[in-house]
């Protein structure tokens, strides 16, 4: 090989190397995941707009039955707390000397209730509840303080419409305040 052709082949190799390694000196190894990203198990988070809520429905009466079987052992038969937190009651206590932060007194969004129950409750069997059961439990808890009426059916459309009593109770600190 002549010196010139050696040089040329080196330049070629160098160019090839640079193409493979982009300009950050590492190889991008992510796998395209368009399909994965659509699957239900990768869409668990429910925002206040409720757009990722699954189809389903439930009422407070249905929720009461599920509650007594699957929730009461930790949250108490009335849902006002045992080894786990109280879920309802105490609405309006946040400015008192003994404020109680229950779902109904403190949580700003009803969608959070669906999100949290589905992903982590009951604590001994997360992801064991059907969407209907989760809607029913949400309805049961919210109805305890008349945030929704007893005859309201919660579903993917009605749940995001629920206005929680403490909806405007939060001051966002990041990024402007200390």
């Amino acid at each position, binding site marked *: 090989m002549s010196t010139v052709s050696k040089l040329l082949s080196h330049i070629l190799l160098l160019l090839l190397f640079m193409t493979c390694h982009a300009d950050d000196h590492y190889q991008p190894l992510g796998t*395209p*995941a368009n399909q*994965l990203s659509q699957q239900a198990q990768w869409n668990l988070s429910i925002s206040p707009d409720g757009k990722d809520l699954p189809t389903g429905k439930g009422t407070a009466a249905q929720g009461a039955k599920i509650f007594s079987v699957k929730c009461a052992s930790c949250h108490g038969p009335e849902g006002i707390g045992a080894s786990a937190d109280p879920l309802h009651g105490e609405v309006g206590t946040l400015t008192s000397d003994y404020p109680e932060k229950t779902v109904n007194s403190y949580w700003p969004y009803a969608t959070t209730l669906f999100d949290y129950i589905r992903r982590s409750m009951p604590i001994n069997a997360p992801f064991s509840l059907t969407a209907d059961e989760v809607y029913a439990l949400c309805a049961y808890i919210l109805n305890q303080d008349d945030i929704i009426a007893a005859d309201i059916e919660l579903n993917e459309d009605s749940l995001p419409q629920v206005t929680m009593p403490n909806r405007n109770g939060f001051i966002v600190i*990041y990024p402007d305040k200390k």
Partner: protein
Amino acid sequence: MKDSPPQSRRQFLKKAALGGGALAGTVSLPVWANSESLEFPDDLPDWMRKPGGDFSNYGQPSPHEQQIIRWISANPDAPGNGVSWTPLHDLQGTITPNGLHYERHHNGVPDIDPAQHILLIDGLVDKPLSFDVKSLLRYPMISRTCFIECGGNSNSGWRSNPIQSQAGYAHGLVSNAEWTGIPLKILLQEAGIKPTAKWVIAEGADAAALNISIPLDKLLDDAMLALYQNGERLRPENGYPMRLVLPGWEGILNVKWLRQLRLTDQPVMSRDETSQYTELQPDGKARQFTFVMDAKSLITSPSLGMMLPDNPGIYQVTGLAWSGRGKITRVEISDDGGENWVDAELHAPVLDRAFTRFSLPWHWQGDYAILQSRATDETGYIQPSREDLIAQRGKHGFFHYNAIISWEITEEGDINHVYGF
């Protein structure tokens, strides 16, 4: 102010005073008798007269140190929901051993098979991507020593009566480690960040599928996908096979067992950013998205559970200081409940958003004393008194308690937790 120069405080010794002269007269080294004899003295210890133990594949602490443990506080009905506290009062230096790093689990420690675990980055990106562990281990990595502190650390401080727990068992939901992993910016850029993305919902692969929103800016700034902790792969209880590390930000955001980062334009308003980790103030409004852990310090020795054996005696007052806003620039110590303060020595290296060890020799004369430490960080922020913190936030904030911690020294040398004068 009330601060007086160090030389006016006779109890705190200048370093020079601790030199040879001060102690030489009192120290006597053991001398073996029969130094001319070839026979070994009978009182040589056993462990010098027979071969020692075997090699070990993975070393363990001395059996004589078995009492140095994390203190577990969990829900009896759901034993995977609770915390364990780092015994800060039993440790020295700044690095928390991996087996003693604090824990906060919402539903136990998952036993994750790394061959089956992936991280999905999706949402407002050009192309959703998944990464397996093997691939991630090939990316360029950085190492960073920083503390991680639970937003609920020290929350007993809000109570009306000072809790009588050892320093680490009241304030040890904070630990400090060298984390090694991939700057998150690299992985996010590979997926391509859409201009509308402002938040990232991080989700863990535990049995709580913990989810929480993090500002995208933080992930692009100094966040890391950590794979190693103090040189070895993450411990299961610290997120194996991968976790987020967000230097200086509250523990809950440093999501363990990370499985997904979804880029969004709004926070998801999950349970752990609404009902928890928000601070209720007296006017009924709650502070939300209070990510940064403010400067704090803690005297780890002498502290509750110890006692001062010699009266009078010289004691090394030592402890830890840290700030989520940068480096610690100053730690002052008071022995009179905050009337007078003396600068402690900061031990190198003083790192950004990491534990800084401080110390100061203290000559205790046997008087009643209240020992306190007060940290200042490089932004000029000064750790508040409990009185000032409560004046600012009320008593029901629960999270982000960083007030000055006071140890009462009785004339008998016993140590109690008090709320200062």
